[in-house]
């Protein structure tokens, strides 16, 4: 054998783990030296990749891939098919979403609030953002936050997922709660979050994948307060306690800028290697980049690329909608948003998905997206049927009267027989054929899958996002996942309730979840021990009660929240199908290439070719698609509102000018309180503005804050708004109520006013009205109460 062959053979033994001293036996000295050298090179420590950078690069690469492709007409057509109810809900979302603005507390606020938007302007320093997510304790279980025990100590608590503090030797210790001092650094992992409480009442909320170092700390209440933080990456929300002492400071450094605040509420977002942004809800923040400083007032945001100066302050917006175009310009809810290198994407949003976007109104009237996060995955071309297997062929099955096609790629649970209850999912093909991708049985064992954070591995039991997952010899584990990694888990829920993994695969992005379980609670939602967040977009079957067996699906959001898009009763069998598409022809009716049998044109209305429509179809025994009705989907609804506190500096008969420089036309403004024309500047107000896509302000509500009265009005508290409700337009029946922010616009539209009614004492103040206008007893709404108390 030649020397190189011998060397390679010995190297293979080395690589298999054999000791080098054994391997060199019998070799000439020169060859032995080569092996020693190879062994030494192999032992040189290899650097590990920084997971934060990997995640950022992954997103950048995926985003770049999206930008290199033009939106195809087919994708734009939004051709999808969903079970009853889902489309209605999405339609309601498209038509009625009142702009989401609560991104300052998005990551820590229940998605119901996120999805329905609203600003958290009255968060006091003592306020603890709501913990949300599949693994978090319920509101009642969250311990009351304690302030830190001294001005030079901060308390880290409210931990969700994996949160670590760095030890003096550089290693990291995973903690549940900790007292931290100046010089210490802590970090959160994916799907994780925590809060940091200072002695003066200031609070920092850390989002997922965030690191913060306390550079200096003296949070005294009786003297100058000094808090300096360094945030190399991630997202934080700051609720800074007011300090009357001179020389007080609250400073956040990022690699690209420094923000200084005094008594304010703001957020800092840092993308590693890209830059950072500061946004203000209340008070003021001075942001300094390389050389210049900009002052941010409520409602404003600035971005700072590394080694650059801050951008001119812009107004931030937050909205939700369906994605109809990706690329350099995204169209969300019909509104174009430019993207840039630093735009952050979460959940790999794509065409057809429902997303939340937050961004900036630029001076030229365009919008720039800073962050786009998926709220609900697209149902493009997809169908779902729950039902009973009636016939099983090689290429075709019949489920609840509906023929479905099977091919080699169809994944079918083992052991399914005629008469079993199944969940069928697949793709609608041209002409309307239903090609099946998955058939899951929920006869005895049920299927689950979700993306989660590996928190512990104890023998065969893994704890993934708080859920104990059993593994056995048949479990396929790929990608060498370790504690701290994101994984996708698929498996079966055994009759004894055990979640047994079939596959555990390391992944980089959060994804959807789905499982079947028993409803343990409906307020808040808990199914099979998993806490679920719901939004007004969540489709819920009617008739669900505690103990019902339901199929749940949704998306895992960046902060670890499990946001349900559908909670469906397993007994429900769906024959009515709904799909969305572009009208190809109206005589005869063709939508997305599918011919429709339309018998009652009276129920269709004025729809022309090219319109985006939602079609309700009853599939007949002869496979004809009989249309029940067709609805036009309006895509040009306004979808952006912002809310902030500010000060009116001038009032004329044409416009109202705010301190932040914004002019509000009088004709669209509703004013509550005394704001006389020509009045002196300096009147504090709460402003709600809603825009059309062309930036035109279509609605403004300006409420004068009466600083003389105590307590001041509390227009918004953790997703709830106090309003004066006037039933049936009868002012004599006015009463003070709190409503979800999502319902605010509707209430304002029918004449209710922001804030408590005058002389509301003695009126029924305990009534709440939910999104649907249904009254309910405050005492029963523990969730809302819990949120408020925190």
């Amino acid at each position, binding site marked *: 054998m030649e020397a190189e062959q011998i060397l390679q053979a010995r190297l293979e033994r080395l690589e298999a783990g054999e000791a080098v001293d054994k391997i060199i036996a019998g070799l000439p000295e020169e060859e032995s*030296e080569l092996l*020693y050298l190879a062994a030494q090179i192999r032992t040189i420590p290899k650097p590990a990749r920084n997971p934060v950078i990997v995640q950022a690069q992954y997103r950048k690469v995926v985003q770049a*891939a999206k930008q290199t*492709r033009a939106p195809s007409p087919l994708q734009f057509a939004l051709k999808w098919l969903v079970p009853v109810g889902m489309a209605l809900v999405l339609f309601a979302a498209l038509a009625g979403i009142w702009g989401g603005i609560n991104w300052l507390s998005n990551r820590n606020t229940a998605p119901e609030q996120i999805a329905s938007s609203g600003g958290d302007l009255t968060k006091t320093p003592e306020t603890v953002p709501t913990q949300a997510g599949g693994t978090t304790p319920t509101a009642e279980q969250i311990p009351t936050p304690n302030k830190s025990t001294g001005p030079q100590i901060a308390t880290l608590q409210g931990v969700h997922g994996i949160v670590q503090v760095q030890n003096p030797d550089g290693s990291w210790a995973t903690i549940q709660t900790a007292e931290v001092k100046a010089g210490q650094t802590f970090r959160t992992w994916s799907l994780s979050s925590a809060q940091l409480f200072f002695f003066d009442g200031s609070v920092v909320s850390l989002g997922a994948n965030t690191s913060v170092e306390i550079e200096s700390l003296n949070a005294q209440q009786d003297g100058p307060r000094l808090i300096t933080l360094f945030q190399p990456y991630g997202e934080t929300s700051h609720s800074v306690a007011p300090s009357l002492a001179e020389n007080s400071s609250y400073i956040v450094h990022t690699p690209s800028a420094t923000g200084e605040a005094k008594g304010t509420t703001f957020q800092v977002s840092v993308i590693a*290697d890209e830059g950072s942004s500061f946004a203000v809800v209340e008070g003021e923040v001075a942001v300094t980049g390389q050389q210049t400083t900009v002052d941010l007032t409520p409602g404003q945001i600035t971005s700072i690329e590394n080694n650059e100066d801050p951008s001119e302050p812009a107004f931030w917006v937050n909205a939700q909608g369906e994605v109809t175009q990706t690329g350099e310009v995204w169209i969300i809810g019909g509104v174009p948003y430019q993207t840039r290198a630093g735009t952050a994407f979460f959940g790999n949003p794509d065409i057809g998905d429902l997303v939340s976007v937050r961004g900036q109104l630029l001076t030229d009237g365009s919008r720039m997206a800073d962050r786009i996060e998926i709220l609900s995955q697209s149902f493009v071309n997809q169908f779902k049927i729950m039902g009973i297997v009636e016939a099983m062929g090689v290429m075709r099955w019949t489920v609840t009267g509906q023929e479905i096609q099977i091919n080699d790629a169809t994944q079918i649970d083992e052991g399914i027989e005629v008469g079993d209850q199944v969940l069928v999912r697949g793709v609608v093909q041209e002409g309307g054929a239903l090609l099946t991708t998955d058939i899951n049985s929920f006869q005895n064992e049920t299927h689950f899958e979700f993306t989660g954070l590996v928190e512990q591995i104890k023998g065969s039991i893994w704890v993934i996002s708080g859920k104990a997952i059993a593994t056995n010899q048949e479990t396929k584990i790929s990608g060498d996942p370790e504690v701290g990694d994101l994984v996708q888990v698929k498996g079966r829920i055994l009759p004894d309730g055990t979640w047994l993994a079939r596959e555990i695969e390391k992944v980089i992005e959060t994804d959807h979840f789905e499982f079947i379980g028993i409803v343990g609670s409906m307020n808040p939602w808990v199914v099979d021990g998993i806490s679920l967040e719901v939004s007004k977009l969540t489709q819920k079957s009617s008739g669900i009660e505690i103990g019902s067996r339901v199929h749940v699906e949704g998306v895992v959001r960046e902060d670890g929240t499990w946001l349900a898009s559908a909670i469906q009763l397993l007994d429900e069998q769906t024959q009515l199908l709904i799909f969305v598409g572009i009208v190809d022809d109206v005589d005869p009716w063709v939508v997305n290439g599918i011919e429709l049998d339309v018998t009652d044109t009276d129920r269709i209305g004025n729809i022309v070719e090219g319109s985006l429509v939602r079609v309700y179809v009853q599939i007949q025994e002869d496979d004809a698609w009989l249309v029940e009705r067709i609805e036009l989907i309006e895509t040009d609804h306004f979808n952006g509102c912002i809310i902030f506190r500010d000060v009116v500096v001038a009032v004329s008969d044409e416009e109202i000018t705010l301190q932040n420089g914004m002019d509000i036309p009088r004709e669209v403004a509703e004013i509550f309180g005394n704001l006389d024309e020509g009045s002196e500047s300096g009147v504090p107000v709460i402003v709600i503005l809603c825009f059309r896509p062309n930036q035109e302000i279509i609605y403004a509500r300006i409420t004068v804050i009466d600083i003389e009265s105590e307590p001041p009005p509390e227009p918004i508290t953790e997703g709830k708004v106090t309003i004066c409700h006037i039933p049936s337009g009868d002012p004599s029946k006015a009463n003070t109520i709190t409503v979800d922010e999502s319902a605010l616009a509707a209430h304002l539209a029918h004449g209710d006013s922001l804030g408590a009614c005058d002389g509301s004492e003695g009126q029924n103040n305990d009534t709440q009205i939910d999104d649907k206008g249904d009254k309910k007893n405050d005492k029963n709404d523990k969730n809302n109460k819990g949120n408020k108390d925190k």
Partner: protein
Amino acid sequence: MVDSEAILIQRAQNGESKAVGELYMQHHEQIYRYVWSKVNDPNLAEDLTGEVFMRMVSRISTYHPTGVPFQAWLYRIARNLIIDHIRKAKSKPAVPLEDVPFIKDRSAGPAILIENKLTVEKLQEALKQIDHDQAEVIRLRFLVGLQINEVAERLQKTAAAVKALQHRGLAALRFSMR
């Protein structure tokens, strides 16, 4: 179901961003190791690795599956980027040669390899002294951790040629480090 690489590449070429993401996940570790083995700076390697994949995105439509294997194509992108980087870095003021920490001691015998811990700096300096192909094989085999056939695929050589380069490379390295 895991797509075969050919299908994955085709999906990526069709503009499916998720497929591009999967390609990143499949290859980023090795590309990072390779870049690090060339530039000996973990942070710079992070940056360049990102650039490799951004370039992959912009050029993936030009990749022909019947040509070089995909991994070899990626390594070629990485190699070109590193060359670009070094070229640019050279146009900036360089560190004086006398400040380079590694000083070769040719009088030392083979024992020096065992007594003195081999550092990546020493290795990098020594790799510069040997034939380029040999150095490339040493990097890919022992720093990146590839098998002979994987190295052969990336360098577009036969396994026998790689074995020969490996042997000669180690011998040249040993001589260079003395």
